[in-house]
């Protein structure tokens, strides 16, 4: 939004838009960063797989077929079958429809919640800042999975609540991050100028301050998707999230445990699916961080 406004202004002055060349530069550095590119390609592939699941799955993921139980990978069953004879390839493909949204939505909850709190705390300062940041401090006093457990304990155990739980447990660290960026963005002369001219706070926040904090938010979000997917899988493993018939990768991995030695594909397929997904988001996130916000490098 603000990008286009700035761009329009530059066009009015007869100059080329800075945002398009910035984009080109970003895309260029992304292509040069092999890890990030590989990560991005795999993520896109996974998203396509999730969307096309009914077309490419070849089998019904929950169709029980006792004669075909625990078959190794073959041309009929590309990833083998589980203890109920269900096709693992179909379950992995449909699982992408669960694990990917869980990761994305959980991170969206953290990012939106954290950004709003951070913007308000950083911009208004004083008492508002004090109250919000004390609450954030208290939330940070809980290791995030414990915070997620608290939310699950309150809301009840199912996949949707796990998503909310993982999302809520991420809010405090976003608030910290965003507040820090807002504190410095607030000092810009154009923010003072806008205030002097009488621009309402809501617009100053959304048009002048938000664009300054977008980069760290995007980088941090990408880096936390992997964590969110792992946390959700972990909670499902503990029996607090997706329940058995659901083809969620974490719970598939958990139920396949008893066949680890005799039929290793039952666990390795969902395990690899989680690992590859998390690995590619992390690679992409690392690359994005190097390009957009090198300060965040640990």
């Amino acid at each position, binding site marked *: 939004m603000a990008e286009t406004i700035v761009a329009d202004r530059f066009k009015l002055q007869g100059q080329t838009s800075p945002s398009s060349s910035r984009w080109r530069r970003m895309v260029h550095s992304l292509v040069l960063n092999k890890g990030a590119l590989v990560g991005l390609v795999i993520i896109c592939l996974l998203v396509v797989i999730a969307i096309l699941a009914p077309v490419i799955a070849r089998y019904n993921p929950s169709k029980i077929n006792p004669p075909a139980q625990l078959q190794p990978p073959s041309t009929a069953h590309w990833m083998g079958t589980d203890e109920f004879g269900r096709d693992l390839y179909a379950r992995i493909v449909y699982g992408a429809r669960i694990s990917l949204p869980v990761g994305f939505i959980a991170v969206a909850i953290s990012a939106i919640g954290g950004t709003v709190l951070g913007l308000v705390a950083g911009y208004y300062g004083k008492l508002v800042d004090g109250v919000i940041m004390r609450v954030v401090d208290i939330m940070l006093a809980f290791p995030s999975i*414990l915070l997620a457990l608290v939310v699950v304990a309150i809301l009840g155990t199912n996949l949707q609540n796990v998503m909310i739980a993982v999302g809520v447990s991420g809010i405090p660290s976003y608030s910290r991050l965003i507040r820090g960026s807002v504190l410095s963005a607030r000092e810009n002369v154009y923010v003072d100028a806008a205030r002097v001219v009488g621009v309402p706070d809501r617009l100053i926040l959304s048009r002048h301050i938000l664009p300054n904090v977008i980069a760290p938010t995007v980088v941090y979000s990408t880096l936390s998707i992997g964590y969110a997917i792992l946390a959700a899988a972990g909670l499902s493993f*503990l029996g607090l999230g997706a329940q058995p018939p659901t083809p969620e990768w974490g719970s598939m991995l958990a139920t396949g445990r008893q066949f680890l030695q005799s039929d290793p594909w039952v666990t390795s397929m969902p395990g690899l699916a*989680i690992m590859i997904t998390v690995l590619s988001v992390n690679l992409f996130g690392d690359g994005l961080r190097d390009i957009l916000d090198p300060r965040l490098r640990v």
Partner: protein
Amino acid sequence: MWRYIERRVLVTIPVLIGVSLLAFSIIHLIPGDPARVLLGDMGGGSAAGDMSQQAYLNLRHQLGLDKPLVVQYADYVVNAVQGNLGHSYQTNRSVSSLILTAAPYTIELTVAGLGFAILLGFVLGVIASLYRNTWVDSLAMLFSLIGLAMPSFWLGFILIEIFAFGLGWFPATGSNGIKTLILPAATLGFIAAGTVTRLVRSTMLEVLQQEYVVTARSKGLRERTVVVRHALRNALIPVVTIVGLQFGSLLAGAVIIETVFARQGLGRLIVDAVLSRDYPVIQGTIFVAAVIYVFVNLFVDLSYAWLDPRIKYE
């Protein structure tokens, strides 16, 4: 420096109050009346009539839910300070004794896991930095990326399969003695080692370019002396902070690892409590775990201040 310590300790107080407030609120945040939810769980909710109404009122009174909220919170805090965190709905055992029994196992696991992570992380990180941009470096980085991306419970299954069922070196489950500690600690440590490796590597790369390292080299010191005495020592400081922060994530990781290896511990306690909706146990365990975490963070911050006098304090 003293002012910093004073301030840092003071900040802990409102956080502890908040932690107790959150732990206390859990039972009031469940949708619906907690006493009804409990009765429902016990199977008494379906039977209508005076009996269930009487049971409901009794339970409310027994849980102290008929008192004003402020009084309930004050009671909770006063009792908690005296070591009384209520009784388990399931076993009727006192929550503090459950926690006291479980906590040593979790602390033992977390410390051992941290030790494993530091050892592996330092070795891999230093080697990667010394052989920068060679296959050794890439291998170490791949290792750390896998550590960050692998579900810990899957790694646990695999280690059990290889070292317990395959080779028979360690027992697969249990929590008695050092032999049962090694596999869970290795699982927990491997996951954290990924972060430590990356951090040690990047810090070492930075330090190795410093002038004092160049000076040490040009004096003709042996490479080993340069790396160990000059570079590694200076690379330690930032690593200590992150390792301290890792302690929290290890504490959290213990929740899953304890279930994988059927170990006793705080994590297991809380997961079982969440599954059986045993609210006093949930409240107590969350409260104690958060207090431990707050003090670990305090300790890390203070040790950081002590380790690195170059930092200026507000």
